[in-house]
């Protein structure tokens, strides 16, 4: 149905909320890409099958990712009038027990993670506690989510609906205050006052640049030229970063609503979402959401009877990392080769088809409805002086609790990594955190108390970037890390300008030779000079920031470079060419176990005599080490 006025929207919201008021049990299965990859599909089927056999009516729906990817597949059960229970690592075999427990109004303790005692509707500033009538002993025993180490210090604004609503349901989005912000903006606010609110909120671009969003909108509104465009950059390409994917998959309407508000503020009537084709589920969810929004009249002509006209098109990116750069993205949207151009004239003046264009990242757009609804002051009250609000990070690598973490700006890296992430895998020590994706840098464990905000990370030679946080432990070789990211960037360099194209290739040559033990004394100054030409001379930010992994590891882990070059030694034991496996003759019983384990026939020796490894044949696979019952094989 069409919602032509806010009263209708309010009526829908009321109806939807009443329906959701948990008259019957409801089961939510985290079916974002992370959940599906961990087996949410079969779990969902098993739950449906188990529910079908029971007499009680039960609703089983898909939801997005609540961030706790390390616990996937995640299932939540809403017990009417009592509480909501979260289960983790659910297997299809658990389905009957979960269904039974849900029907009985209790919990299947085996897989229970925590209990959610209140339903927060962030956009309306409402925290509605579940009535908690008749919680049995088992339910009482479960830890509350507010006390769970992964969740307790997080603050979900961008992820307000992720893992809570069915992303395929417009009604559920509206029930949680969705589209009320757009209605408010279009009917009660003037474009200038919206821009003023975004400026006052302190929101800065979440895609990496950190440019103040309100100033960008204002410049675009003031730029002469028609038509104007708004663009959502969903071409998230940093290795190990998937914040945007989770937001689209879990809450697609929030982006659409943000863009509606932005289009009205700027004076645009057409918007584009540029989303990478490698995110098929995100594309599907967006398409459905767009269709729903059009049918409901949130997109199209005369939105909410305000006279504002706005539609959105989806364009899929074909897999070039550089297309996440705004000018390359716009070239790609125009149907040209996705290559950047110099931004001496800004895209807010001459962007898509040389018209004023306002490009923001997924998370930036998603924050907009919250700011409009809760007010700029509320938003500005969260975070630090220069960096407001929250930021979603994808915490990956050797973190014990990996997943998406949304925290207020300014919390320390230590809190994110050690408290929320639970530190590194048992038996290892934390060595460094890589922030900001391939263009970011490595921050050593000694600087872990740095607050997470744009300025502080930049000052350390890293950057906020789009929000990748790769946790590295003592078994990570920092030269190898620099080599990995440089290889990625060399592969993704478009080749237009000389410093990035040739510089990244030479940088990779140098790093590869250091990792292979052929490093030369002059290689470190050479890397530094190559960094200068790339930083100072590249045409776009991809090349300009490409040396960051090298520069930051040189800054904090120079001794590792020197160990590789001067001593032909990889302190972390990663670079294969620099490893030597040796059998300690005194400890060897000559049992031949290592001979059988060695795939390259490098180990010889008579039975019950001490064996030796022929280094020229050894592939350094390490299979002999666990095969030896005496523990006689050591790595040097």
């Amino acid at each position, binding site marked *: 149905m069409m919602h032509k006025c806010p009263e209708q929207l309010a009526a829908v919201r009321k109806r939807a909320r009443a329906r959701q008021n948990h008259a019957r049990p409801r089961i939510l299965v985290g079916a974002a890409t992370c959940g599906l990859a961990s087996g949410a599909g079969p779990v969902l089927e098993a739950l449906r099958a188990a529910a079908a056999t029971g007499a009680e009516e039960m609703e089983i729906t898909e939801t997005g990712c609540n961030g706790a990817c390390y616990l996937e597949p995640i299932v939540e059960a809403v017990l009417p009038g009592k509480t909501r229970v979260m289960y983790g690592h659910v297997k299809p075999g658990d389905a009957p027990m979960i269904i039974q427990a849900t029907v009985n109004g209790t919990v299947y303790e085996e897989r229970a993670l925590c209990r959610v005692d209140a339903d927060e509707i962030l956009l309306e500033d409402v925290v509605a506690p579940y009535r908690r009538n008749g919680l049995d002993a088992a339910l009482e025993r479960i830890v509350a989510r507010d006390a769970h180490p992964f969740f307790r210090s997080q603050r979900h604004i961008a992820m307000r609906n992720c893992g809570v609503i069915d992303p395929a349901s417009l009604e559920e989005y509206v029930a949680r205050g969705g589209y009320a912000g757009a209605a408010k903006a279009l009917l009660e606010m003037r474009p200038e006052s919206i821009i003023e609110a975004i400026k006052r909120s302190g929101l800065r671009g979440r895609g990496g640049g950190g440019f103040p969003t309100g100033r960008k909108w204002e410049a675009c509104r003031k730029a002469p030229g028609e038509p104007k465009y708004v663009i959502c950059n969903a071409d998230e390409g940093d290795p190990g970063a998937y914040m945007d994917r989770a937001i689209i998959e879990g809450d697609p309407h929030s982006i659409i609503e943000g863009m509606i508000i932005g289009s009205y503020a700027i004076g645009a009537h057409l918007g584009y979402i540029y989303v990478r084709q490698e995110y098929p589920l995100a594309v599907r969810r967006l398409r459905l959401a767009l269709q729903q929004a059009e049918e409901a009249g949130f997109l199209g002509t005369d939105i909410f009877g305000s006279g504002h006209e706005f539609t959105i098109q989806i364009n899929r990116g074909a897999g070039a990392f550089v297309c996440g750069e705004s000018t390359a993205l716009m070239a790609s949207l125009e149907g040209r080769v996705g290559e950047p151009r110099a931004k*001496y004239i800004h895209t807010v003046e001459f962007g898509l088809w040389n018209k004023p264009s306002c490009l923001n990242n997924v998370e930036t757009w998603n924050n907009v409805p919250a700011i409009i609804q809760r007010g700029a002051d509320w938003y500005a009250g969260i975070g630090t002086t220069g960096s407001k609000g929250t930021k979603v990070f994808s915490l990956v690598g050797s973190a014990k609790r990996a997943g998406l973490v949304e925290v207020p700006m300014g919390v320390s890296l230590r809190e994110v990594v050690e408290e929320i992430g639970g530190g590194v895998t048992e038996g290892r020590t934390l060595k460094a955190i890589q922030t900001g994706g391939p263009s970011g840098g490595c921050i050593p464990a000694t600087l872990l108390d740095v607050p997470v905000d744009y300025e502080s990370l930049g000052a350390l030679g890293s950057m906020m970037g789009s929000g990748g946080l790769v946790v590295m432990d003592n078994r990570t070789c920092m030269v190898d890390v620099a080599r990995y990211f440089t290889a990625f960037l060399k592969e993704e360099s478009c080749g237009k300008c*000389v410093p990035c*194209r040739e510089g990244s290739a030479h940088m990779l040559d140098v790093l590869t030779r250091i990792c292979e033990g052929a490093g030369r004394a002059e290689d470190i100054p050479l890397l530094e000079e190559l960094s200068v030409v790339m930083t100072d001379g590249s*045409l776009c930010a991809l090349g300009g920031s490409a040396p960051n992994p090298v520069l930051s590891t040189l800054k904090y882990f120079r001794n590792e470079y020197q160990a590789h070059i001067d001593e032909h030694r990889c302190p972390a034991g990663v670079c294969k060419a620099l490893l030597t496996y040796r059998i300690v003759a005194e400890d060897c019983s000559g049992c031949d176990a290592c001979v059988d384990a060695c795939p390259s026939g490098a180990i010889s020796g008579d039975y019950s005599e001490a064996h030796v490894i022929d280094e020229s044949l050894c592939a350094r696979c390490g299979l002999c080490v666990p095969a030896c019952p005496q523990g006689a094989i050591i790595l040097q």
Partner: protein
Amino acid sequence: MHQMNPVNFSINGRPMRAAPGETVLSVARRNDIPIPTLCHHEALTSQGSCRLCVVEVSWGDRSKLVTSCIYTPYEEDRIETDTPRVRTLRRLVIELLLARCPNVDVLQRLGWEYGVKPGRLAPEDGRGKERCILCGLCVRVCDEVVGQHAIGYEGRGVERRITTPFNDHAAACIGCGACVYVCPTSALHYEDVENVRIMKEFQTRVELAQCRQCGRRYAPAVLIEKVTRCAQTKEDDRHLCPACRRRTFAERMSAWMQKQLPDARANGDRLDVTTRAGG
């Protein structure tokens, strides 16, 4: 919006005035201030990819490097074309290009001028035999001036190459040789063999038309067709090689003069050969 009026700024301390939309490079060239370029040609759109034309722009107490072939100055910009930062960047860019194309003389000259120490970036994997620096002038001249779009880029990063669609004979190529002409490093060549012009780097062969007088194969037939269409050349001249055309022209003119000369002498007039003889 940026620049509706002329802009007053300075280059190396000299006051300058740029027309609306004029680049720093253009102003510098007008004023005989040298700035090296490899990917710039005044007939083509600038793309700022070789990075050799960088200059340092300061305003207030801040400064940054910009590519002068695309940067249009702002009021009161102070531009310096030869600071240490500029020279370092140019030296490193040239060093990178020399590692790719060690045998290109224009790069060798620049390398000498900017003090590149040879051999530091000896490529390890066969790069280095290359002559093409990927400046893209050939692609742009074919698109923007000739209008044929016969060549383009393939691949990305160091694997990027300039080639024809599908690395195959380019049907759109008219064999005009503009790409060869504009190439700053002599990376492109063509050769006329019997009745075809071979575009050597582009797997493309174009038939050469025969001069109706001397029988010589003198230019690609498709090129002649295109030029005729664009320039509306006289029908009779269309199928003559340059030498025969010159000769016919001379013969025509001579015949005309023979006819006119006696009358003109009688009248004491000067002959107006420019407007009538060729016609």
